[in-house]
């Protein structure tokens, strides 16, 4: 109120005077690079390949892995069937084709041998040597023998087979777990095949994006050459302009008036030429005028 204000400016430089020319040169050259057409060729996008494509071997390998994962293994499938049949007791009864075929051979061979090579030797010589009867009792007596022994053998083999298959059932139990895990492995391989391809594809997307971004940011990067030089200069100078308040002229006039009045009164008394009041008035007036223009 009544006071007047103006501005004061403080300047601070953070670089030596002798370095200023270098700084200006740096700024000027940055500006040229940023805006001069002479440098256009330095700010172009890269047109070459930056991401290698998948080659046939890799693709085929991934496809093989995927096929294996999706379709499984023939050997594993067959092993799986065997384990399933064993666990299901398919072999316990001895009804399988292979077992029956074996039984046939195991019984036919001995009985054929017996019938054709042993029984024919019985009784015949006795008849020739003195047996007047026409009856070959030895031959007759051995007629049911082959069948009887076959029955015994079959019973024995069925029973032994049953025990063996029970052993097998027990034996395949740990293997069954590993086979059960094969489907998990298949799934993992299939997933892995997909992952391999996806990782490559992701890389190609990122590469494409990087190129696109570089193209988009190209003009900004160019201007940033100048931006960098400007940033280098930030802080090299500080100029502060702030309001400055000084007393108002009226206050100066009043102050000087009062000082003048005091001086006038003080001088009037000893000189005697003027009254104290006149001295004070004259002094006050002169002081006020000085204060107004000081």
């Amino acid at each position: 109120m009544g006071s007047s204000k103006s501005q004061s400016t403080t300047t601070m430089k953070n670089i030596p005077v002798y370095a200023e020319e270098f700084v200006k040169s740096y700024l000027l050259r940055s500006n040229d690079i940023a805006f001069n057409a002479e440098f256009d060729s330095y700010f172009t996008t890269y047109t070459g390949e930056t991401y290698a494509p998948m080659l046939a071997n890799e693709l085929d390998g991934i496809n093989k892995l995927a096929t294996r994962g999706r379709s499984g293994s023939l050997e594993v499938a067959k092993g799986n069937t065997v384990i399933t049949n064993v666990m299901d007791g398919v072999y316990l009864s001895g009804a399988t084709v292979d077992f029956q075929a074996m039984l046939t051979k195991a019984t036919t061979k001995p009985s054929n041998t017996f019938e054709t090579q042993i029984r024919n030797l019985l009784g015949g010589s006795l008849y020739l040597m003195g047996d007047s009867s026409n009856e070959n009792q030895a031959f007759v007596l051995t007629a049911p023998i082959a069948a009887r022994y076959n029955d015994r053998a079959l019973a024995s083999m069925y029973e032994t087979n049953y025990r063996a298959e029970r052993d097998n059932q027990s034996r395949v139990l740990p293997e069954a777990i590993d086979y059960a895990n094969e489907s998990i492995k298949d799934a993992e391989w299939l997933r892995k095949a997909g992952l391999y391809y996806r990782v490559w594809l992701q890389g190609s997307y990122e590469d494409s994006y990087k190129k696109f971004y570089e193209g988009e940011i190209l003009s900004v990067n160019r201007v940033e050459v100048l931006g960098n030089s400007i940033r280098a200069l930030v802080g090299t100078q500080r100029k502060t302009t702030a309001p400055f308040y000084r007393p108002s002229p009226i206050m100066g006039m009043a102050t000087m008036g009062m000082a003048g009045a005091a001086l006038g009164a003080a001088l009037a008394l000893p000189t005697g030429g003027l009254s104290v009041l006149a001295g004070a008035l004259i002094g006050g007036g002169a002081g006020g005028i000085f204060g107004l223009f000081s």
Partner: protein
Amino acid sequence: MGKGAGSSNQTVTTSLLPDYAQPYVEAYLTKMTELSNLGYATYPGVTYAEQNTNELDGITALATRGRNGSLLVTKGKTLLQNVLDGLKFNINPKIDTAFSKRAESIVKEFEEDTLPRLNQRFNLTNNFASDSHHWAQSKAAESVMAKLQDFGMDSYFKDYLSERLLQINSLTDARQYGEQEVTDAEILRSAGELDREWQHGKLEDIYKKWRDEIERIVKRLEILGNGVRSIVGAHIQETSPFYRPSAISQIAGLALAGAGMFAMVRGMGVNPQSMAPPTQAAPNNSLVPQSFNMGGGF
């Protein structure tokens, strides 16, 4: 500032470098400027190694193995598949011969040893061709049948059980052989990946060289830029306005002091006792102080 007041600038300089460093700083900046104007040559040499024959052949061999698999593994697989399919049951080509040979020895023993001994025994006792002779021959034949049956079981049934055991035991191998397909696929894929990685590295190398080429003007400029940045803050010079009272104000102040001194010399000093409150009403010329006091009158 007011009209009459005097004002000027004051400059405070703080150098964070010793004075004797100035020539070096100038030399440094000059040299950096020179260097920034020189050509920034890109590296002319090879920066990416070519694949050598061993590496290439190795990758090719890996790919071939992965693509075609192994002959041994293929054969093993065929064998395992046959075993698991039960194709090995009852096909032992030697078993029939073995049985025949064993049967032959039994038949021969029966014919050449057992029957003649029986005949001789019954002949000596005049029971030749008797019922008991027939019965004895039939019992001897029965024991032959028992032997033949044992041989039959021993040959064919044991072979079957042995094959069944092999079938069960091959389960572990079947899994491992089944996983060979994965090994092959991974080998083939790895071979491709090794190739691709090398190709990718080469593309990146070419790209790096291209970047190096197009960025060289900026790199050159930044040689000077670094020089500039290194001296920022090495020196602080602060210039600020300095205000002083106007000459008139100084003269007025000086005059007041002189007048005061003059009044004191002329006996017009202020009596401190006069500061006590007046005991009677002030006279008409109350503007004149009883005792004038510069410090308290106004």
